[in-house]
């Protein structure tokens, strides 16, 4: 038997043993998982970023001029490590402030452009979709356009907080919540699908790669 796969199988079954009940084997596997995954991340970030991008960026192996502005990144990074100390831990807020600011600046526009503006533009749909050649109405797409338009507007009405949900506005919000529920239903179905796939992957590892029972 392949020793590598055997080890992987033992670890797999060790984690699954939690399903019966919490037990020392599971907790041991969990502890190993935490250690190995922290080590994995640290190594990858060390070699692919710190060594490859930062260090060889500042001191290129081919002897060309280095990019010394990269030092700023490293200095900010080192400040981050001060968080481990309770006395001067506050200084770690500087790099954090940098990351938070940069992310806020980038997101502010990217989300606005891609998730608001372009979506609004794409919802300005013709409620009548006509076949260019024959000139007749394509009913499936016409209904689809209507569904999208009504769904988006009523959904926005539901999330509009400056007006009480009464009268026509309230009725629209009601339609909005129905649309949201169908949306969440779709998400629900897809999430179940996703979770089942994860299990299928492990099962196929156990029966195919390890035991070799399936061709």
């Amino acid at each position, binding site marked *: 038997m392949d020793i590598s796969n055997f080890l992987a199988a033992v670890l797999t079954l060790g984690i699954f043993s939690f399903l019966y009940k919490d037990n020392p084997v599971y907790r041991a596997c969990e502890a190993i998982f935490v250690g190995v995954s922290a080590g994995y991340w640290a190594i990858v970030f060390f070699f692919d970023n710190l060594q490859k991008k930062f260090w060889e960026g500042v001191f290129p192996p081919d002897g060309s001029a280095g990019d010394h502005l990269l030092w700023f990144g490293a200095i900010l990074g080192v400040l981050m490590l001060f968080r481990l100390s309770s006395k001067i831990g506050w200084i770690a807020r500087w790099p954090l402030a940098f990351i938070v600011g940069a992310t806020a600046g980038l997101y502010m526009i990217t989300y606005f452009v891609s998730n608001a503006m372009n979506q609004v533009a794409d919802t*300005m749909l013709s409620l009548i979709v006509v076949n260019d050649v024959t000139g007749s109405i394509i009913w499936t797409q016409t209904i689809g356009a209507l569904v999208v338009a009504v769904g988006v*507007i009523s959904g926005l009405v539901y999330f*509009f907080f400056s007006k009480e949900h009464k009268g026509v506005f309230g009725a629209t919000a009601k339609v909005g919540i129905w649309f949201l529920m169908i949306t*969440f239903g779709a*998400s629900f179905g897809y999430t179940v699908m996703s979770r089942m796939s994860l299990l299928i992957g492990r099962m196929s590892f156990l029966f195919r790669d390890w035991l070799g029972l399936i061709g």
Partner: protein
Amino acid sequence: MPPAIVNFIAGQVGVQQLVVSGTSTTAQTPPSHPRAAFLVLLIIISFTISAIAQEPADTAAFDLPDERPAPPTSVVVTDFKYDAGNRVDITWVPSIDDQPELTLVDGYTVYRSANGGDYKLLDSLLPGISMYEDEEVTPDSVYTYYVATMSGKDTVQSVVTQEIRPEWELVNFDLAWLFVIAVIISGSIVWFIWRARAGADLFVRKIAGLDAVDEAIGRATEMGRPILFIPGILDMDDVQTIAGLTILGRVAKQIADYDTRIRMPVSRSLVMTAARETIKASYQVAGRPDAYSDDMVSYVTDEQFGYVAAVDGIMVREKPATIFLLGAFFAESLILAETGNSIGAIQIAGTARPAQLPFFIAACDFTLIGEELFAASAYLSGEPKQLGSLKGQDVGKGIAMLAIILGMVAVTMATAFEIDFFQMIADGLNQVFSTKAE
């Protein structure tokens, strides 16, 4: 005459020369006078007509193995608008021999000369391509380009383009509308925050889930069982956690009034500190500071599944009558909701994470959906920055709804009745909102 057209004609001349002489071209000075251009146009037309007339002969010539492909035509270089002066675009019309069913053309090569120096190869491109973006230019230099058709080892060059000096622009006017709308929304957010700070009364509608809170706490009191509050698994830097704790403030006050017990295991030490402060303050407001104890909030572990296992244990052992799940939740949402459900607790949940919301809706009694969580938090806290943001966002939603309705009506009218006026409005709106890069 716009330079592009001059260039276009110059390109055509180059082709014709090639066809006639069968040799590669030299640089052509484009005709500068409109009348000269017209003359050139006439020549082109006559050549084209003669080419059509000779078509059979040409097709026969196609099959010869040593046939050289035609060069690309109409090679035009344009400065890319609204950049830092570091991009020019070269476009051309592919060689007429570049047809999917023919294999004569292997692709194109683009050459550049900077400041009148030698031509250097920039890139080899696939057949069918008719554009190249050169992003290795600077505003300090002047460039000329030519494109060549590749066929085996053979290359046939186009004419050389006009000289171009990349220009930089300060402001990207393509995005002017984006900027205007962003400023309107940002401005209204700031304005509303300012108004709220000045003490203006900003209206926020009632949130349905909040009504259930009183009832749920009352039920726990009747049954004499504790209330469990889970603020998600993220730290204090997540807005959902903060919103959860704001609602906790209100819940804790009610609990103090009713003299019920609260139990709050958390997965971050900072959240523990903040939650203790929140509950303590609420007990003080309720006039029962003596009833508060630090044991109400306990830190469990940062580890996701470890935390879930511990909370599950608490649920099963202490059987809380009411469970609040308000904050940022991940895969653990369904495990918590399921266990809570199995002990028969009333569950009030809320998160802004779309992937977890379905599970809460299916397994809990009340769910604050997405933004409702923040709205509830703003409503309860009355904090100016939260309230102001909420109102400002409503302005954004208002604009979105209005634009959609207007655009929809315009497009529909334009399609149904083919009225130009509506088409104009529809196109205009689309231009304002669609920002797709080219």
